[in-house]
């Protein structure tokens, strides 16, 4: 269980997070939504120890995250940030095998390779495994990084805008993979996401932020309502319901 309490963060004089507290439900996809500058990515970075908060604490399974060894955290929690441009000659399989580093320190055992192959299968990258990363398209590269995170086999998977720069097909593919991670493997996924409809369609829970504070923290269908969305984003919304899933229209209103 991930909990965070009274988290504050300032960049210079600007307060990006203002004493926020909450917890992340287990075994679900939680989407962090909100306008630009709301503090979503900052919160995600703090939860995943990439960034140090000014105040407050994050607990992972009832232990303060700053007191847990880095390598231990890496077996429980993984994080993937937006920009993944590497100037390295690496094959997809090599990259995915790095996911086993916390366990094997670079000397992969039989079981580790099995895990790598399973991750490649899971993200449907088996036929690309010997291709070099710099020869892949953006969508394929993003999926390769996702596959590395899957090979890391952590309880919690944190992703910062995994759909950035992806076309519809790849976006759907990534979201379906995340869905399967939760439904089939019982992982907990937390994503920062901009396209509201992806959040509405694929996530179980939504944490909506605005101006460094949590506005709503509820099940997806409870947050996807005209009034609440208008409050968060400041524009009009029209909501269409189809098979118990909501679709938001915010064009030409």
């Amino acid at each position, binding site marked *: 269980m991930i909990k965070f309490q009274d988290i504050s963060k300032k960049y210079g004089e600007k307060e990006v997070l203002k004493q926020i507290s909450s917890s992340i439900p287990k075994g679900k996809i939680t989407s962090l939504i909100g306008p630009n500058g709301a503090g979503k990515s900052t919160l995600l970075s703090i939860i995943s120890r*990439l*960034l140090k908060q000014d105040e407050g604490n994050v607990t992972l399974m009832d232990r303060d995250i700053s007191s847990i060894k*880095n390598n231990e955290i890496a077996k429980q929690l*993984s*994080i*993937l940030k937006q920009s993944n441009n590497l100037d*390295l*000659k690496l094959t997809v399989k*090599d990259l995915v095998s790095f996911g086993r580093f916390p366990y094997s320190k670079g000397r992969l055992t039989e079981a580790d390779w099995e895990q790598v192959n399973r991750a490649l299968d899971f993200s449907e990258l088996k036929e690309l495994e010997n291709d070099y990363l710099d020869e892949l398209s953006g969508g394929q590269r993003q999926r390769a990084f996702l596959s590395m995170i899957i090979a890391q086999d952590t309880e919690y998977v944190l992703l910062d805008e995994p759909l950035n720069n992806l076309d519809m097909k790849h976006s759907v593919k990534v979201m379906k993979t995340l869905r399967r991670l939760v439904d089939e493997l019982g992982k907990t996924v937390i994503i920062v996401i901009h396209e509201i409809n992806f959040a509405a369609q694929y996530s179980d829970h939504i944490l909506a932020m605005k101006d460094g504070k949590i506005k709503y923290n509820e099940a997806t269908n409870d947050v996807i309502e005209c009034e609440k969305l208008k409050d968060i984003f400041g524009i009009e919304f029209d909501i269409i319901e189809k098979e118990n899933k909501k679709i938001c229209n915010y064009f030409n209103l």
Partner: protein
Amino acid sequence: MMLRRNLIILIISLLAIIIVFMLYDTGKNLDYVIPRRLLRLATLLVVGISVAYSSLLFQTITNNKILTPAIMGYESIFILFQTIIVFIYGDKTFEVINHTDNFVYAVLLMMGFSLIMYFLIFSKGNKNIYYLLLMGLVLGTLFQTLAQFVQIIIDPNEFSMIESYMFVSFNKMNESLLLMGSIILIATLAICQPYLKYLDVIALGREHAINLGLDYSKLIKIYMIIISLLVSVSTALVGPVTFLGILVTNLTYELFPNTKHKQMVWICSLIACLALLIGQFLVEHVFNFSTTVSIVINFVGGLYFLFILLRSRKTI
């Protein structure tokens, strides 16, 4: 198995050049020539390994293939230090301070500099590694200008003493310096050994490294200390060799793509030794000592650097 073949070719050519270097045109005075050549050979090997190791480490932690530790200003510190010593003691310099002490002070000074820089920048928390590089660049320029200023006001005769430090030369070596350099090199490599496996992950960048469970800032600190030790060794032994690092690391990436750093450091060292030996051989037998090996290396390295730049522009 391309890689294996490349490695074998590399090792054979290194052995061949060592033999040629030692035995070509020795003349009759073997007792004199052979020990002197051995000394130069050993120095070249120590410098080659230091430069290769430090450049490869530096490029990995900065995620940049066209940087060398020179950007951090180590070499300008070294020159400034030599200039100030000569300024203070004048032509009596080497009566007051012998080569070995000079070497030890230079090494300590360069290490101290990199530690101070490191703590200045990282003690405040999550500063980016590029701050460190930019600070190094600016301070390096400052030291260089200071050194130039002092050089202008000192006696021209004394200036020629400094000048010998500013250009690489493998001809001025002496045994005690080489011994110290080798000890520092071996000790540093021994310290470095357990940390080599993390380099592959560091190469993925800070965020991935932390995600995969590394204590990133502690590791960077360790690598910076190792780099400053190695740079000190090579600079204090023969002076600045700027382009050698770029030349050998990029040749390594090209000839041995997708290799683990554990092996890469040694391959890179092999290439560096090979480049230095060929350069020195040319200096001794083709140019008849009319130039120095640094000029040869910088010329070839510079051309290669331009080639890399032009090529990478094409792929973007």
